[in-house]
């Protein structure tokens, strides 16, 4: 699930920014090619793609800084829904 989530999230970002290279662990905001408005798009994409509603306490930039952190967030939401 986590690898699949990583792939989907990475595909979403690289479709928008095809010229940028970054690892799954790199801070995409620190790299400077995305801004906070893109964070809003990331939230909308994740909620739609993974059929989840991210709780308010999880809605902070720290959870969206890298592909890995976003995949972890998806995994937490999915396991919470199952559990």
């Amino acid at each position: 699930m986590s690898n699949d989530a990583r792939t989907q999230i990475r595909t979403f970002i690289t479709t928008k920014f095809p010229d940028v290279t970054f690892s799954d662990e790199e801070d995409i905001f620190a790299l400077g090619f995305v801004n906070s408005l893109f964070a809003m798009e990331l939230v909308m994409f994740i909620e739609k793609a993974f059929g989840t509603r991210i709780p308010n306490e999880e809605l902070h930039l720290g959870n969206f800084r890298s592909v890995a952190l976003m995949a972890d967030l998806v995994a937490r939401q999915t396991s919470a829904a199952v559990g």
Partner: protein
Amino acid sequence: MTNVGVVGAGVMGIGVAQDLAQKGHSVVLVDNNPEALDEALAKIELDCRLSRMLGGPAVDSEAVLASITAGTSLELLAETEVVIENITEDWELKSALYAQLDVVCKADTVFVANTSAIPITKLAALTSRPDKVMGVHFMNPVPMKAACEFIPGYHTSEQTKDTVRALLDSMGKKSIPVNDSPGFVSNRVLMLTVNEAAFLVHEGVADAKTVDEVFRSCFGHPMGPLETADLIGVDTILYSVEVLYEQFNDSKYRPCPLLKKMTDAGLHGRKSGEGFYVYQSMG
């Protein structure tokens, strides 16, 4: 707490309604399109949820939505104290609306035009209360912006100015007074800049990303003019440039054909999912 009507559930109307509700006011949001109202409430909920993440305060989205009554009938505005109008920048639509507002609202209700280019005095003349009409040019995104242009018309009374200034103070917004003239200060400069940036893309001098990169990297602007156009709405940019052209009769305000083509094609920017750039849509 003021009972405020907001007419027009587009980008600006949504922002104004949300900001007023966040600051404890009771809001009546009216649009003639029920789908636009549904989308507006969904957008307000999302923006409230994301407020903290985008550098704003934590916002209780349920409380904000509970402060907003949405509907398609102007009759809902009967008991409002202030009405803020945010409809499309189109003189025919505006003139019809102000005549109706004048009938359905109380005699002492103040009308605020959140117009970006049409003169306030001309709008006030459509009503029987020109002393109770003035302009406020809110900036987008409204809940994040700390200042606005404050534009009295020729007949606007001191009492009306005080009422509107107090409302803006309650929203945490600094009022910057400017005189009534098409486009005021901000849009007379901004719309021409965006229009010229669109010409650069249209003529193949540079693509949108490159134009914006020049403004970001060379001038230190947080956003380039074409990213800004997508945030405001490409259609709104076109209408504003057209209004400036009509008002000044000066060819320097001729709209770029690319703006017309994009507007016709539905490439209206962030709100439609695509403009000069492509976005993740809400749908």
